[in-house]
């Protein structure tokens, strides 16, 4: 390879092939090329089969410019020898590259490959990372708060995917929330009355009887939920008491939690506030939803038609969910985990009233947190199809998810404050739950922060940013 062959090599080859003396062979080769030369001289073209055509080409004289001086001068015409190989020879030489063909390019053809594969991999990674916290915490709100953290660690490319995922989550949450709202709307006329009774009951602190009475109603309600095709009128009536009971239990839980955790005199001060604020909010709109939503709710209140539509949509959702589950099992599992958190309050309490009391407060919390996010991030108009896919799976998987939830959150009541860990100034957009997540790894610890800062935190639902709070050191009881 890449040797320089001379006449000597050619004569050797030729001599070996034809059993002729090297001398003869050399004479032949030399004569061969000499003849070409002479023939060129005499006839200007020599065509040799198997090699090609040699030609003498006249080059006209032309003008040029000397590079250094810029002076014009004449290049004299001359003749040059050109060689064009025989078609056969050309093809044999080009054999290694023969399979290439000329291609006509489109105008927009991109010649450099775009790194499509990389982004796909990152997307998968991102989705995995999102799934992990779900499994660990079984808490929807945590997922939301975890995702931003994850984003920081990931590459900017992954960020985009994360945000889109988040958007999905938010959509799911919103749909779930709307569902809850719709239910509430139906029962709303009664709400004012019930809240009053709630308060009185709470003041007496008769926890047990109340939960018992409501239990029966819940059982009914649960049946409807499972059937998925509730008759509207029946649905409305049981629905309302359930909601109320959620509130009540939630408040009771806060009381219990605080009582268990600490016996300080501040507790009573905090508790009444919570009791007051929560019922009021409940009466208005179970979920403290964004401003956009409340007017919509009022319109719904007046006519039963929207409710019918909701029921129809639910059926469609179920179909959509099944299809989604078949084709995208991964997406389904993650979304269902998230969305279950909005749904459980309806069914869970009837099943495990005592054990899960502590849960309900978490649920409420999630709902509250979610709504502001929606108003910020999600554009008002949303495709119905997406909603459908999400809400239905939530219902079907409710029961399965309940158990782990109960176990993780019942723990949150069994801590006591043993001192001040550090001070922390709340930043803009931060909530107590977010602070709790930052310091304790779970959002469930926010009541302890409230308890530890009775003077600073007037209203735990609205802590102005810039407020410096003390983060309590917690120890398990």
């Amino acid at each position, binding site marked *: *390879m*890449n*040797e*320089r*062959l*001379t*006449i000597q*090599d*050619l004569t050797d*080859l*030729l001599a070996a*092939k*034809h059993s002729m003396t090297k001398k003869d062979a050399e*004479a*032949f*080769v030399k*004569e*061969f*090329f*000499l*003849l*070409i*030369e002479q*023939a*060129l*001289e*005499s*006839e200007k*073209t*020599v*065509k*040799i*089969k*198997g*090699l*090609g055509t*040699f030609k*003498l080409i006249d080059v006209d004289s032309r003008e040029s410019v000397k590079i250094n001086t810029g002076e014009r001068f004449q290049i004299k015409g*001359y*003749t*040059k*020898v050109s*060689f064009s*190989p025989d078609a056969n*020879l*050309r093809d*044999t*030489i*080009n*054999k*290694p*590259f023969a399979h*290439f*063909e*000329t*291609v*006509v*390019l489109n*105008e927009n*053809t991109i010649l450099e490959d775009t790194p499509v594969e990389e982004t796909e991999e990152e997307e998968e990674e991102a989705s995995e990372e999102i799934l992990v916290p779900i499994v660990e915490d079984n808490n929807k709100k945590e997922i939301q708060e975890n995702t931003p953290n994850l984003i920081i660690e990931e590459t900017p490319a992954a960020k985009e995917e994360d945000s889109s995922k988040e958007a999905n989550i938010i959509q799911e949450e919103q749909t779930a929330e709307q569902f809850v709202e719709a239910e509430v709307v139906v029962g709303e006329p009664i709400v004012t009355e019930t809240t009053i009774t709630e308060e009185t009951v709470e003041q007496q602190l008769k926890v047990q009887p109340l939960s018992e009475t409501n239990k029966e109603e819940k059982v009914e309600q649960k049946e409807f939920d499972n059937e998925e095709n509730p008759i509207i009128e029946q649905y409305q009536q049981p629905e309302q008491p359930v909601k109320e009971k959620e509130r009540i239990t939630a408040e009771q839980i806060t009381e219990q939690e605080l009582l268990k955790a600490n016996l300080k005199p501040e507790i009573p001060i905090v508790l009444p506030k919570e009791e007051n604020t929560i019922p009021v909010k409940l009466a208005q709109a179970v979920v403290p939803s964004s401003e956009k939503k409340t007017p919509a709710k009022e319109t719904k209140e007046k006519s039963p038609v929207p409710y019918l539509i909701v029921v129809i949509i639910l059926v469609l959702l179920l179909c959509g969910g099944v299809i989604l589950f078949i084709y995208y099992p991964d997406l389904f599992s993650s979304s269902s985990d998230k969305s279950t958190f909005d749904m459980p309050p309806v069914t869970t309490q009837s099943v495990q009233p005592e054990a899960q009391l502590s849960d309900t407060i978490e649920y409420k919390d999630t709902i509250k947190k979610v709504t502001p996010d929606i108003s910020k991030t999600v554009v008002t108009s949303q495709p119905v199809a997406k909603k459908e896919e999400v809400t239905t799976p939530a219902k079907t998987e409710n029961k399965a998810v309940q158990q782990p939830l109960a176990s993780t959150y019942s723990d949150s009541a069994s801590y006591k404050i043993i001192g001040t860990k550090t001070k922390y100034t709340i930043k803009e957009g931060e909530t107590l739950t977010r602070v709790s997540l930052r310091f304790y790894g779970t959002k469930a610890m926010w009541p302890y922060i409230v308890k530890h800062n009775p003077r600073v935190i007037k209203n735990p639902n609205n802590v102005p940013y810039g407020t410096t709070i003390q983060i309590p050191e917690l120890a398990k009881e």
Partner: protein
Amino acid sequence: MNNKEFTSELAERLGYTIKDTSELIGSLLSDMTQKLEEGNMIVIQGFGSFEVKKKTERISINLTSKQRILVPPKLVLSYKPSNTLKDKFK
């Protein structure tokens, strides 16, 4: 001068028959082709050199139709006349 004329002329000069000459020419050229295919360079003193060169792919544009055409890479046999030959024809 075409191939036939060339062969007869060569046979006459060397005293071989035309048949033998064409045979010899054929084997000489096939040897050369084989060596060139292997990537070797053939240099003939006083005449010039034969070499296989690789032309890289390129995009050519058809001026009339404005079409862009991707021309694939290819191997080309190039002949470079020796200086003595060049001077002779100048």
